[in-house]
């Protein structure tokens, strides 16, 4: 119990880092996703290169690049900022693919309908595409946020005292490295399982609302009466 209490401040910082990375990385991923889905080649090719670097470089290499590489060219980040910058970049690269698929997954007819209704491009995106893409994107995004949470443990490498770093420090002070690490692992496990359960719940809920929405969608009672008027169609 004492072990858990000792580690709680670290868990707080872990959550802060996690929130920061998700809040910067996911919107950036959305922008990248748009560029990949609709962008002109001049935009799309550099974004594709960035996305491939973000996904092909190990997270640790990106982190070290930001923390101990960039100072050589005169850009200094504190260790907290380095973690957020580095992993936001990686998260944007990974989520770009998720967003791209969701944006392209919105049926083409919807875009045509929107343009027939005279909606501008941005209005179409804001009112038609994004709300639908958001629903499709939510479960994989929550799933990916588990990966982000686990990745914050690498902050240990730049001397940050989030949960892993704190456990390592406490372990080397008290010579009880293994109990602290085991407790840390157990806390990560509980948090990750909780998040996955939320993702599963969201998935179930969104699929249920979609199913419920289908029978509702032919709404107009006049429509049914027209159908009934056709001989043989009714009763």
């Amino acid at each position, binding site marked *: 119990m004492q072990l858990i209490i000792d580690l709680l401040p670290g868990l707080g910082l872990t959550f802060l880092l996690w929130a920061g990375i998700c809040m910067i990385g996911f919107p950036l991923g959305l922008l990248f996703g748009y560029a990949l889905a609709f962008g002109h080649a001049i935009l799309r090719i550099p974004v594709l290169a960035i996305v*491939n*670097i973000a996904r*092909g*470089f*190990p*997270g*640790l*290499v*990106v982190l*070290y*690049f930001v923390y*101990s*590489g*960039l*100072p*050589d*060219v005169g850009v200094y980040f504190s260790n907290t900022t380095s973690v957020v910058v580095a992993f936001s970049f990686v998260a944007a690269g990974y989520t770009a693919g998720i967003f791209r698929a969701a944006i392209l997954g919105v049926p083409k007819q919807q875009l045509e309908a929107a343009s027939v209704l005279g909606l501008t491009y941005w209005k179409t995106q804001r009112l038609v595409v994004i709300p639908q893409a958001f629903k499709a994107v939510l479960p994989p995004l929550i799933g990916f946020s588990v990966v982000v949470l*686990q*990745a914050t*443990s*690498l902050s*240990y*490498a730049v001397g940050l005292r989030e949960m*892993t770093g704190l*456990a*390592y420090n406490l*372990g080397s002070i008290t010579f009880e*490295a*293994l109990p602290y*690490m*085991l407790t*840390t*692992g157990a806390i*990560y*496990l509980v948090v*990750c*399982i909780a998040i996955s359960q939320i993702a599963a719940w969201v998935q179930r809920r969104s699929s249920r609302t979609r199913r419920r929405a289908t029978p509702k969608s032919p709404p107009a009672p006049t429509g049914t009466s027209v159908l009934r008027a056709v001989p043989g169609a009714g009763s």
Partner: protein
Amino acid sequence: MNILWQLLQTVPSTMLLWAAAQVLGLVLAIPVAAARMSRERTLRWIALLWIEVTRGIPTLVLLFIVYFGLSINDFRPPAMTAAILALGLSSSGYLAESIRAGFEAVPRQQTEAAMALSLPLATRLGRVLLPQALPIISEGVVSYAIHLFKETALASLIGVIEVMAVANYLVERGVNGPTVFLFTGAIYLVGCLLLAWLAHLIGDSGSRKRGKTQRGATIAAVKKVEVA
């Protein structure tokens, strides 16, 4: 160029770590997947626990747990051994899930048909279910292998001398940081691309072979009908 050469010299060490962890992961994953699909409820629960634990604990934490767990009194395990064990453990959960996904994708009727023909278990698994599950399993295994190749960089944090460790050493010695880390990242990126390309090649030749045998079987069947 000198930097790149120094980094490349430790690539074999990274490759060894990667290959050993992948093999260990597969060896562990097969019984876990079998237990996960077992009819025994207790076995299923144990397998589920294994999968959740190995997937839910960050790889770095697992690395420390294995490293500290093997340290008894003054004994310190070789860093490479600890890293292989930890990465193998963390792979086993994901790999077990991809094996299960592969077998579950095979239609139920195939099992039922094999049972109706009273094929022995080994034939049912080896000649009926596995060939159909294999494309899906290998897809999962390959994508995890690519992920694992990047994960090996974590081993530098417990003192394994591989590409990442050399990169850090060079930067501490005062070599230009951005250059070193870009080269390091590029080595991993090229490794991942090579792996993906190799898997693509093997997958392609596999499906071509399968296509050929299927066509061969069809032709043989048609001939049989013509003779009759």
